[in-house]
């Protein structure tokens, strides 16, 4: 899932300072699971902002709402009035949610309340770690199911660098060396012969290096006719 983190409160306060009516909108998907922008976090942020305003004698109307998935227009539509009724919308979703609102209501101001960080997984309660960078061409079947592009600080593709000590990464001694993990996994799978294989230069054109990516599934796309029909129903 997409893992995000709330922005420092001071930054949020500063961002919102010039405005009177503020709508905070969270999301019940990824950012709720990673405890950054779900219902509870929205309520807590709204409350904290109100306390701050009371302390400083500032008048702002701040309301919080949560939608199911902020990256989908259908769900955002449900709170359209709340958005348009405000001077600024603070999105407590990942940047995708914030940009969806922004694209739907381009004249309206939508600011990010979170810093979107990574594609990651919950490792244990309260801990998330990065496991994928979305390179667009998965290779983990050759690396024991562990992605060295995301999990190695140097995205090495031919084994560990010389800075791996006691199984930890030199960049952060708290983090496991991806290639030690790969070695252990391959050993477990009786596939250690794979470490002798040469992996050539990666074609990064499938990643962001190839420009903004747009994926299309022609079979799922609606025809003009179907689109009109759908609009009519709505």
């Amino acid at each position, binding site marked *: 899932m997409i893992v995000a983190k709330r922005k420092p409160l001071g930054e949020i306060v500063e961002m919102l300072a010039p405005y009177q009516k503020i709508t905070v909108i969270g999301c019940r998907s990824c950012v709720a699971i990673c405890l950054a922008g779900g219902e509870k976090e929205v309520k807590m942020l709204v409350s904290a902002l109100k306390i701050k305003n009371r302390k400083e004698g500032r008048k702002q109307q701040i309301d919080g709402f949560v939608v199911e998935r902020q990256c989908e227009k259908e769900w955002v539509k449900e709170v359209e009035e709340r958005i348009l009724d405000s001077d600024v919308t603070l999105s407590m979703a990942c940047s995708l949610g914030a940009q969806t609102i922004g694209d739907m209501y381009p004249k309206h101001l939508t600011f990010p309340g979170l810093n979107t960080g990574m594609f990651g997984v919950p490792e244990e309660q309260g801990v998330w770690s990065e496991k994928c960078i979305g390179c667009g061409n998965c290779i983990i079947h050759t690396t024991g199911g562990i992605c060295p592009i995301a999990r190695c*600080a*140097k*995205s*090495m*593709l*031919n*084994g*560990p*660098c*010389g*800075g*791996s*000590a*006691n*199984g*930890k990464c*030199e*960049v952060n*001694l708290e983090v496991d*060396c991806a*290639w*030690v993990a790969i*070695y*252990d996994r391959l050993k477990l799978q009786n596939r250690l012969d794979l*470490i*002798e294989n*040469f*992996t*050539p*230069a*990666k074609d*990064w054109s499938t990643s962001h290096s190839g420009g903004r990516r747009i994926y299309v599934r022609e079979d799922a796309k609606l025809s003009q006719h179907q689109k009109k029909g759908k609009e009519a129903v709505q």
Partner: protein
Amino acid sequence: MKAGSNLEKVLESGKFAVTAEIGPPQSANPEPLTHHARMLKGYADAFNLTDNQTAVVRLSSIASAVIIMREGIEPVIQMTCRDRNRIGLQSDLFGAAALGVKNVLCLTGDHHIFGNEKAAKGVFDFDSIVELKVFDDLRNSGKQLGGEQIKDPPKTYLGCAENPFATPYEWRAARLAKKAAAGADFCQTQAIFDMKMFERWMDEIRGRGLDKKVHILAGVIPVKSAGSARYMKNKVPGMIVPKEIVDRMKNAKDAKEEGIRLCVEQIETLKSIKGVHGVHIMAVAWEEMIPRIVKEAGLLPRPTF
């Protein structure tokens, strides 16, 4: 001859090679390089010019190479994958070759988190093994990574580094095998303090016949003090410094003298290990000791061709 460099001649003629490291200055002043070149001339077969080592911004390795070549000594330029993508690396290889640089050491590079530009965007388009393969293909067939056929390809003698002391240890010989297959002619190792561990690695290297494919230059670092030995033991990832060495430095009356003695002893031991074809002296910020170490280790005079 692949490039016809002095280092290549020494190694291919079966003589015991000596290389040493010169760290370029953190400025645009060429003077420290000229100074070191004059001081070190004749004490090693070629000199590594580090490429922004530990990710600290320094005078570029190619420019440094040209500066020391003016003083009549031979450079090995280090080229990391940290700061340049495949376009930059291939272009700089052309440039270095055109300026007369014949030895290139391929490295992935220290992560920028260690340097003085921590907010940098790391490149790491590929790793050092791919870099070797790309440079090897260029010199052998003039074929660029993207497939384009070029005229007048760079003729270079290619080196790599390997660290026998990093985890997983079981992978270390396999890594050198990959580097040899990718085109490495020589390999400079991480500084060796744990001789037993190095010998075990060398057993594996010989077992795979790699000593016949790659010239191994064993790395040494003269230690200045017990403090710096302890620092390397505890703080430098991928370095193993046995406690005996720290103790020996601690108990020495004159730590600097002891450091030199230790380094000379290490070179003597390394010379006797089968498959070791030279030493690589990394006298970090202590380059003035190189002549003495080389002399006391009985490595003078250096061969001429």
